[in-house]
C-alpha cells in the first residue's frame, strides 16, 4: 500500500552516501562538509521520524531497508550527535524501529543492535574501551554518565578557554602563541555545539580572540552558525562578543540588519515602544557605535528604503533606530567617536542642529530651531553646487532620519501661531525633495492653501466633517503623491491639536481610512506622535488620550 511517503527515496540515498563519506568525521574536509550540512540533515531526520512514527517497525524496515545503516553511521559521527536536536530525533527514530514483540532472530538482532547504539550514545558502550574504566567507578560512587559528562565537558572547556585567553596577555610572547590552524580547528569543532550552554565561555573567548594575523582565522562556518543562533535567540552572548563577531564577519552583520528589518516589517506593532524594544534587543544600535558597523547598517537601511519606495514603516524604523543609536552613543563611557565621525560628508552646522534632541531644548525654542534648520537646508539645496540626485538623496536621508523634528514642525504649524513659511518649506522638502519640474514649489503652494484653510477653521470650536471635506477632496484629487502625504500629515495634526478637531477626530479619521488608502500612513503618524509626546515631556494628556483611543480602534481594524 503506497502511502505517499514524505521522504522521497532520492533524499535517503543522498544522505546515506553522505554518511558513508563522512565516516566518523576525522578529516578536515569531512568535518567542514558535515558542518555545512547539519541544519538540512536535522530537517531530514525530522522528516524521517515523522514518517516512522506512524509505522510498525517491520513496515519501517521494509520501506527503508537501509535505514539501519544510515542511523548507525550517523550515531558514530560526533558532529551530528552534538548538533542541536539531531541526537534527540535520531534516538526517537531508533525507538520507532525497536520491536516490542520480536518474531524472529532478525528482529531480535535488530533490537540488540538498537540497544547497543543507545548505550553507546547514553552510557558506556562496549565499543569504547576508555570508557569501561571509569564507568564502573562512577556507578559505584552512585553517579551516572549524566553527571560524569556534565562535569567532563566543563573540565574540557576550561583549559581551552585558558589556552586561548593566555595568548591575549602574553602580548609578544611567542612561546605562548596559539597557532592559527589550532584556533581555526577549535572554532570548527564548536560548530555543532554552539547552542550547548556549557560552551558559552568558549564561544565568547573565540569571538574575542585576536591573534594578530590580518586574515580571519575563525572558520566562517563557525561565525555564521553563531550569528544564526544569536539572531534566533538560541544563545545569549555578552555584547562585546556580538560586536566582535559583526566587526570581523561582514556577512553576519548584513544578515543581522536584514533580519531586524524583516522582523519589524512583518509584525504588526501597536506602539513605538514595542518597535524600540525589538530594535534595542537586536543590539544593532549599540553595535553601531563602531563607525564601521554604523556605515554598513546605514547603507542597508538606505537600500531598504529605496527598494520599498520610501514606505512609512521603513522610515519609522530608521528614525527609531537613529534615536536609539544616539542614546546608546551617549551612554557609552569608553572611548567615543564624536558624532560627526558617523556623518562625515555632511554640512556640519546642519548636522549639529539635527543632532539636538528635542528634549534638550525648551519647547518655546523649538520654532526657532526649526526655522534655523529650514534656512540652512534651503541654502544647501538651492545652491547650484548640488549637482547630482545622489547628493540630494544624501541630504534628504540625513534630514529624514531625524524625523522627530519633522513631526514637531508639523505640530508647531498647527499648534502655535507661527509664521508658516519656513516650516512648510521644510515639510515640502521632506515629502518632495526634487524640484526639477517645480514639483516642490507646486507642493509648497498647495500646502499653503490647505494650511490657510485649516487656520481659518482652527479657532472654531464646533466643526463638522463637511468643513474638512474640501481638504479631503484635495487629498483624493491631487495626483502628486507627495502632496497627498503632506496634506494627510497636516490634517491629522490639525485633528489632534485643535480643539474643534478633537471632537470630530475619530469620525474624520475613519472617514479618511475608509475613503482613501492613507490608513497605514495615518496609523504610523499616530503611533509616532504618541511615542513622541510621551518621551519629550510635552504636557498633553488630552491629546494622548485621544491618540490611544484612535490607535486602539485603528489597529484592530487594519
Amino acid at each position, binding site marked *: 500500500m503506497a502511502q505517499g511517503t514524505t521522504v522521497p527515496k532520492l533524499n535517503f540515498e543522498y544522505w546515506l552516501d553522505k554518511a558513508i563519506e563522512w565516516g566518523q568525521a576525522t578529516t578536515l574536509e569531512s568535518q567542514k562538509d558535515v558542518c555545512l550540512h547539519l541544519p538540512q540533515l536535522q530537517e531530514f531526520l525530522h522528516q524521517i521520524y515523522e514518517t516512522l512514527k506512524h509505522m510498525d517497525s517491520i513496515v519501517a524496515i521494509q520501506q527503508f531497508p537501509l535505514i539501519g545503516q544510515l542511523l548507525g553511521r550517523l550515531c558514530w559521527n560526533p558532529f551530528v550527535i552534538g548538533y542541536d536536536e539531531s541526537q534527540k530525533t535520531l534516538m*526517537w527514530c531508533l525507538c520507532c524501529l525497536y520491536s516490542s514483540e520480536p518474531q524472529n532472530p532478525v528482529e531480535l538482532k535488530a533490537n540488540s543492535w538498537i540497544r547497543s547504539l543507545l548505550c553507546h550514545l547514553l552510557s558506556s558502550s562496549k565499543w569504547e574501551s576508555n570508557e569501561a574504566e571509569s564507568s564502573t567507578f562512577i556507578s559505584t560512587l552512585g553517579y551516572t554518565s549524566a553527571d560524569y559528562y556534565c562535569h567532563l565537558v566543563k573540565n574540557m572547556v576550561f583549559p581551552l578557554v585558558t589556552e586561548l585567553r593566555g595568548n591575549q596577555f602574553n602580548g609578544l610572547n611567542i612561546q605562548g602563541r596559539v597557532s592559527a590552524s589550532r584556533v581555526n580547528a577549535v572554532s570548527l*569543532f564548536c560548530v555543532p555545539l554552539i547552542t550547548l550552554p556549557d560552551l558559552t565561555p568558549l564561544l565568547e573567548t573565540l569571538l574575542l580572540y585576536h591573534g594578530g594575523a590580518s586574515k580571519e582565522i575563525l572558520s566562517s562556518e563557525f561565525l555564521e552558525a553563531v550569528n544564526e543562533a544569536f539572531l534566533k535567540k538560541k544563545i545569549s552572548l555578552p555584547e562585546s562578543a556580538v560586536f566582535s563577531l559583526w566587526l570581523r564577519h561582514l556577512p553576519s552583520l548584513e544578515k543581522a540588519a536584514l533580519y531586524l528589518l524583516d522582523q519589524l516589517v512583518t509584525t504588526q506593532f501597536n506602539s513605538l515602544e514595542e518597535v524600540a524594544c525589538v530594535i534595542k534587543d537586536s543590539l544593532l544600535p549599540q553595535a553601531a557605535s563602531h563607525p564601521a558597523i554604523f556605515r554598513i547598517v546605514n547603507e542597508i537601511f538606505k537600500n531598504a528604503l529605496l527598494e520599498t519606495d520610501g514606505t512609512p514603516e521603513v522610515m519609522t524604523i530608521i528614525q527609531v533606530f537613529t534615536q536609539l543609536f544616539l542614546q546608546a552613543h551617549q551612554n557609552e563611557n569608553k572611548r567615543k567617536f564624536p558624532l560627526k565621525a558617523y556623518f562625515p560628508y555632511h554640512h556640519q552646522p546642519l548636522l549639529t542642529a539635527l543632532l539636538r534632541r528635542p528634549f534638550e531644548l525648551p519647547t518655546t525654542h523649538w520654532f526657532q530651531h526649526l526655522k534655523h534648520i529650514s534656512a540652512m537646508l534651503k541654502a544647501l539645496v538651492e545652491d547650484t553646487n548640488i549637482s547630482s540626485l545622489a547628493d540630494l538623496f544624501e541630504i534628504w536621508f540625513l534630514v529624514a532620519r531625524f524625523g522627530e523634528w519633522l513631526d514637531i514642525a508639523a505640530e508647531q504649524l498647527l499648534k502655535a501661531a507661527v509664521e508658516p513659511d519656513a516650516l512648510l518649506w521644510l515639510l515640502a522638502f521632506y515629502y518632495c525633495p526634487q524640484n526639477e519640474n517645480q514639483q516642490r514649489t507646486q507642493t509648497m503652494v498647495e500646502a499653503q492653501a490647505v494650511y490657510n484653510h485649516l487656520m481659518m477653521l482652527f479657532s472654531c470650536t464646533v466643526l463638522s466633517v463637511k468643513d474638512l471635506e474640501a481638504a479631503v477632496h484635495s487629498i483624493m484629487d491631487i495626483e502628486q503623491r507627495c502632496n497627498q502625504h503632506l496634506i494627510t500629515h497636516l490634517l491629522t495634526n490639525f485633528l489632534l491639536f485643535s480643539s474643534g478637531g478633537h471632537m470630530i477626530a475619530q469620525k474624520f479619521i475613519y472617514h479618511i481610512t475608509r475613503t482613501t488608502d492613507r490608513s497605514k500612513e495615518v496609523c504610523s503618524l499616530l503611533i509616532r506622535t504618541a511615542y513622541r509626546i510621551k518621551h519629550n515631556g510635552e504636557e498633553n494628556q488630552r491629546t494622548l488620550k485621544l491618540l490611544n483611543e484612535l490607535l486602539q480602534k485603528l489597529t484592530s481594524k487594519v
Partner: protein
Amino acid sequence: MEAVLEQVEQLPALLAVSRSALVRDWDALTLDRALEWGRYFQHLHDRFRTRPRLREALGRRLRRGQPSPLLGFPQLGRCPQLLGLALLENRALPPAACRRLIHSLLQPAGEEAGPEPCSLALLARRKAASRLLALPGGPPRAPEEMGPQPRTEAQLLLSRLREEVREAEPAGEAAGRLRWLSGVLEELPQPRAFEVVAAALLLLLLRPGSDAEQAGDGGRDGKSLDGNQASETGDEGVAGLLLSWLLGNLERFSAFCLFLPGSLLASLAGHYSQFSRPYLDLLTGWGSHLLYDPLQGRWVKSCLDKAELSWEELRERFTCLCQGSALLKGQTQAALKLLKARDGDFTVCGLSVWTDLLMEVEEYLRKEAKRQ
C-alpha cells in the same frame, strides 16, 4: 513519615533488581511502575533537601538497607537516571518493557516537551561534545595539571566523600569508610586510581566546596545546597580519608610515588604534612639503595628492580621539593644535610649519595635563581 522511610529503604533493592536478571519477567506495566518509583524518590529528594533533620533520617534509613554505603540522600535526587540507565544496560530486560523504557527515557512523563531539553538528549549531546573537544594539538599539559577525565572522576569522588563524611554516623565508622573507599578505588586500574586520588587531594586545596559544589546532588543544573555546607572540618575529614588510603599500604604508596611526577608530589607534600614525612622517608630509602659505579662515574640502582627510582629521577624529585614553599624547601634541605652528615659529611663526589644530591640540587637552584 514511617511509611515514607520504609519506602526509601526499598530503593537499594530496587536498583539491585534493575541490574539483575530478575527483570526478565518484567512487562511494560512493571517497568512503568519502577520508573514511577524513581520519580517519586526524586520528588522526595526535592521536598526534603532543605530540611536537614528529615534528610538525615532518610539518609540513615537508606543506609540501613545496604551492605556497603552505596547510596545516600543525594542519590534519591537522581533516581530516574540511575534506574533508567541501569535498566537500559541490562540485557535481560524483555523487548516490550525495553520499548516502553526507551519511550519514557526520551519523553519523561509529567514533563511538558517544552523548552527544557530532554535530559538524556543533553547527555548524548555532552558525550559527543567530549569527543569533539578532545581534539589533539593543544599545548602540552603541565605535569601538575590533571587531564579532564581524572579531574572529573576526582570531582565526583570528592563529592561523594564529602557526603559520606557528613552524613554517615561519625562514630566508629572510620574503618568501614576506609574499606569502602578501597573497594571503590579498586574499580579503577591502579595508575588511574593514583591520578584520581592525587587530583582529589589537589582539588581540596582550592576554595573548599567550589568544584565539588557542582558535583553535588541533583545533576540537573549543578546547583546544590550540599556544597554550601562543605565545611573546613568536613574537608579535613575527606583529606584524612584519602591519605589514610594512600599511606595505609607501603607497596601502594611507593607505587604512587613512582608513578606520579615529582612536581605534583611536591605540591602534595607542600600542603599535606601527613604526606611529606612518609614521602621523604621513601625517597631516603630509595636513595640509600643506590650504589656508586666508579667505572661509569655515576650512581646506579643496586638491583635493577623497577620499583625504585634512578639517580636522575631522585634528583628531580628533590629538586621539585626544593622549589615548593619555603617551609618545604627548608625541611628538604635540612633533611638532606642531616643525611649527608650521618653518612660521613663528605665533600667529595662519589662517596655519599646525599653529598652528591645536595650538591647537584643546590647547583640547580642557583642556576634557576640566576636565570630569573
